[in-house]
């Protein structure tokens, strides 16, 4: 197989994930796009490892080992990321990353009223669920 096929597919998948990270607004969709980019890197690693294990008689299999490590790190990343997104949603009532601009320079935050007003509905619902559980 030509090495160009997996390399080009990997580049295209990476750029698709790049578009998703830049253009999406929901935090979980951004996490999905990050997964796409990580998978593109994995495909590249596997393709080059298969090539080098024959062409250069490389026996370390560093590409496949790194792929396994990347998959494990991606699993850890998605767990932590979802925990952060859920914590933000619990506090703010939204997972819209365009509205999380508190630390942006030159932009005042929306004011203390707007996020608290949004957060009241899900927080009350969550406390109801906890109290009745």
């Amino acid at each position, binding site marked *: *197989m*030509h090495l*160009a*096929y*997996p*390399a*080009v*597919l990997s*580049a*295209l*998948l990476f*750029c*698709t994930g790049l*578009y998703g990270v830049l*253009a999406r*607004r929901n935090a*979980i*969709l951004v996490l*999905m*796009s990050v997964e*796409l980019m990580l*998978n593109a890197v*994995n*495909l590249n690693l*596997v*393709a080059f*490892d*298969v*090539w080098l294990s*024959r*062409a*250069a008689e490389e026996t370390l*299999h560093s590409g*496949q*080992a790194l*792929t396994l490590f990347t*998959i*494990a*790190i991606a*699993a*850890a*990343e998605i*767990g*932590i990321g*979802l*925990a952060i*997104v*859920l*914590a933000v*949603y619990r506090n703010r009532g939204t997972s819209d990353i365009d509205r999380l601009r508190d630390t942006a320079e030159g932009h005042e935050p929306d004011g203390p009223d707007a996020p*608290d007003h949004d957060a*009241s509905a899900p*927080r*009350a619902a969550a*406390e*109801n669920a*906890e*109290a*009745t*559980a």
Partner: protein
Amino acid sequence: MTLAATLAGLAAGTTDLAADSRGFLSPTGVEIAFLLVGLVTFGAAVVTVTTKQLVHAALWLVVTLGGLAVEYLLLTAEFIAWVQVLIYVGSVIVLLLFGLMLTRAPIGRSPDADSGNRWVALAVAVAAAAALVWVVVDAFRTTWIDLDGAPAGSTDVTGASLFQHWVLPFEALSVLLLAALVGAIVLSRKATADAATAAATGTPPAGSPPAVAPPTTAPVTDPATGPASAPVTGPSASGAADAGSDTEGSR
């Protein structure tokens, strides 16, 4: 380019690296299969990042990751393919779907799924794709992967290299997974602890809106122990524990 040239110089005489006899116009069967699965994978990825329905995006991501597993199989990396199916399709997608449901993703079309800078993002992505594809094709146009013979990524080969040469990173990764697990549990238990202390002291935590639930349900459960003991773990904590244990188990 220089990397490819160096490696070609290293391996000269052992394998024919230059694929001058093999053109792109006469593909082999594996290449045709790779192209077709690659088209499906890429199309599913594009739908994933462009669809307006959030749950459909997660389901198209399943198609993308499954297509990538098939590509790993075609590249004779069997172990990676099954790990991909187990971890990504098995647990990461489930975690993402749980996340979508827990943040009340609307079922149906949501008009604000895309940000306002999507045209800038599209320009950046297309420019990056053009540059990367041009460079990659120019560098590896004549490089040939020899797929005949023993598979390059069987469980035997991968396990031997992993536990001979990569033991220390492997163990470090176990510690990292443990840290991630503990971190996810701590992150998702914090609000529960706040609510428990608020219920115990009778005052809402600072900055939170006044709660409606505790006064009405106080006679039902003991306010000191009821809300504190009822929610054992947050939903994302158990989900993250799933991901961690899946990763440990599949390795």
